[in-house]
């Protein structure tokens, strides 16, 4: 029964996730809500300066874990559900033979510690390297989506475009995916119990969970539960279940024919009670430390990434500043997937190795649509903060600069003006050059740095108008909205 509930729930959830990442229909609110059910994004959003009550997803996860153990891993985590799916396919091919496995406790504690350091020092791109949700996002955005679009375009006759695949990210995602498949095929949920920082944290908390899985006296040691255990945490011989590693898939309960294994409230003895108290205590101390850290320590120690580059990369509107963006983004690529113009593309090392895979605005591929604020709506970590459409229209993320030597008007003596045509605010005006020719000129107060001019500029090999990013986003003036006098009905025609 519990297993069936899990299967239904998790299938719906992963379908929603895939729906969101493949951008089948554009529902930014759904994307955002789904993403902040995830532990690390909602934790980061909670810790960020724009606190929102929506960001309490991780608290709910914590409470659930204290009550029931690591239900997060089987019910909410998309990477976990993906692994379950792989296991499901594997079991169709070959009957499962699983056995109790050694516990790699210290590996996962080490990764938890690393993640803690990354979060404290705001190196969240590195947090995202291990975070299951960010990994799922990268696989979806860079691997599943292009493949889906390719086949959908070919066989279903749906008009999907395969947009500029980032080969490095495709390769990385493929590599990770293959690694995950191999790990899952041979060792089941080993990723969740060794590499996943969320799994590690929840495993500590699940030590004290009120509901636990236990083998009772009915057991005839048939070993069905051990075979079907996804976390390899049941030892039938000894009659023990390692609840720290149990991901609460409830396969064991469903498979037991003697009702010899159950999920129920556990009364604990004194020794365990003390343990529980200790864990709660240490957890409180840890959170106090963390709080202290966020108030003071990180201001002293937080690593300043070099921002002195002349032309810093352009970050999406809503990210406030390069610093804010670099510190909070976990590279889940939900914004990359949601961007209707595909101007948001994954970077690799462009922001520096500490900000690996964070998205950037790539004006050689596309431009930022004036009437769009989707990325700011979906971002689950506060790296891109919510903007209303009117705020977005005046958020200056960069300024266009005209380079006369490259311009076709100057070089070919022909009128072009396509930059002016695309400019949504008409910050790019055309001014007389010579004869009948006009060249662009940028009004820096109005320009918002959307990059439409740079994208469409036909000059090659070098563009004649390029956007230079603002390290700190500014507010641009509203374009002149003066109303023209209505001309009378009279006309020459």
């Amino acid at each position, binding site marked *: 029964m519990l297993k069936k509930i899990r299967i239904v729930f998790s299938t719906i959830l992963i379908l929603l996730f895939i729906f969101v990442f493949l951008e089948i229909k554009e529902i930014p609110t759904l994307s955002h809500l789904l993403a902040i059910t995830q532990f690390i994004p909602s934790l980061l959003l909670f810790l960020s300066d724009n606190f929102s009550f929506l960001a309490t997803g991780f608290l709910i996860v914590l409470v659930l874990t204290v009550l029931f153990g690591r239900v997060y891993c089987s019910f909410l985590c998309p990477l976990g559900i993906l692994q379950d799916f792989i296991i499901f396919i594997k079991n169709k091919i070959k009957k499962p033979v699983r056995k109790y496995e050694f516990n790699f406790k210290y590996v996962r504690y080490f990764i938890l510690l690393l993640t803690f350091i990354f979060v404290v020092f705001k190196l969240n791109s590195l947090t995202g390297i291990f975070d299951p949700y960010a990994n799922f996002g990268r696989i979806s955005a860079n691997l599943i989506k292009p493949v889906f679009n390719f086949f959908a375009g070919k066989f279903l006759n749906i*008009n999907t475009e395969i947009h500029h695949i980032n080969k490095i990210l495709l390769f990385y995602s493929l590599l990770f995916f293959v690694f995950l498949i191999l790990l899952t095929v041979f060792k089941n949920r080993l990723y969740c119990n060794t590499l996943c920082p969320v799994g590690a944290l929840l495993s500590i908390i699940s030590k004290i969970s009120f509901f636990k899985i236990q083998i009772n006296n009915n057991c005839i040691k048939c070993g069905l539960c051990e075979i079907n255990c996804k976390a390899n945490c049941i030892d039938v011989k000894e009659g023990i279940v390692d609840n720290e590693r149990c991901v609460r898939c409830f396969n064991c309960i469903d498979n037991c024919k003697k009702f010899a294994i159950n999920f129920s409230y556990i009364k604990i003895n004194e020794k365990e009670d003390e343990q529980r108290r200790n864990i709660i205590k240490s957890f409180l101390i840890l959170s106090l430390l963390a709080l202290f850290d966020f108030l003071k320590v990180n201001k002293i120690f937080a690593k300043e990434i070099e921002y002195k580059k002349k032309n810093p990369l352009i970050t999406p509107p809503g990210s406030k500043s390069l610093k804010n963006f670099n510190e909070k983004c976990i590279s889940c690529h939900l914004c990359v997937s949601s961007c209707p113009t595909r101007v948001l593309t994954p970077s690799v090392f462009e922001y520096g190795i500490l900000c690996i895979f964070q998205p950037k605005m790539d004006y050689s591929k596309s431009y930022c*649509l004036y009437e769009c604020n989707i990325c700011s709506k979906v971002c689950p970590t506060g790296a891109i903060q919510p903007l209303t459409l009117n705020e977005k229209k005046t958020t200056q993320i960069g300024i266009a600069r005209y380079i006369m030597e490259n311009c*076709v008007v100057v070089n070919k003596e*022909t009128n072009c003006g396509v930059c002016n*045509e695309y400019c949504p605010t008409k910050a790019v005006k055309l001014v007389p050059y010579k004869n009948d020719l006009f060249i662009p000129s940028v009004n820096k107060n109005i320009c918002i740095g959307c990059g439409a001019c740079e994208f469409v500029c*036909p000059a090659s090999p070098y563009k004649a108008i390029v956007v230079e990013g603002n390290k700190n986003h500014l507010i641009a003036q509203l374009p002149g909205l003066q109303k*023209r006098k209505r001309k009378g009905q009279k006309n020459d*025609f």
Partner: protein
Amino acid sequence: MHRREFLEKSLKFLITGAIALKTGGYGKIFALDNEKYDLVSVTGENIKKMFEEGIKFFGGIEKFVKRGMTVVVKPNIGWNAPPERAANTNPELVGEIVKSCLKAGAKKVFVFDHTCDPWQKTYTVSGIKDAVEKAGGKILSANMQKDYVTAKIPMAKSLKSAKVFKLFLDADCVINVPILKDHRTTELTIGLKNLMGVVWDRWWWHANNLNQCIADFLALRKPDLTVIDAYRVLIQNGPRGISENDVIKKNTIIISKDSVAADAAACKLLNKIPEQIKHIQLAYEKNLGEINLKNLKIKRIVL
């Protein structure tokens, strides 16, 4: 002239004449009384009604759309802006044209544009997708290169060949439905400029004498009918526009078989001289249509 040459030439002449008469030229020569007017302008409030009334003066849409034909209706759907901003053709007008084509017995009516902003956005925001689907037409994305074929352009000065949306060449009937707009580089964008939306590599035009390219392209395939939407007109900050403040209402549509004449008439609506709009003048110089409205029979209706 040698005998052989004479025979050859006269044979060619006969064949050409016969083909011309067979393929529709016949109707144009001998059925003049059905088509009294070269150009019709309709002013009114209800744009659907305006088209309905206006097309009657050409003998109805049936004159252009025969049973079983594949029809292409080419509006301007370039920008991510609602109808009120007048950056795209009026959706009601497009819907009405699609509907009347189907009523006349068209097999299929296709609507598309190679958009500037992403088509997924512009098609819906402009309201054209809804209107077309409601009317029973089919709206297509024109943003994939595989749907384009290279075509040689006759008599071209600048644009010798272009990648053209295949359907535009294959269709039996093409109806161009541009919107009259301000445009900084070409002064105005009307029907001829709207045809840029059926080519793939149009940025090349901007770098290679845009006005000449626009005029050249008309020679490839002249639309069978042009319906200019001058209901709402974007008179500044074109062709994208910033806000509704850039828009005035002219409440007019212009219908003509002659693309150049239709554009010339639309220029006059905004008190511009057609001869000064370079691409229109260039098209006229190439004998692709009439720029001088005095030489045309014009019907003006106010509803």
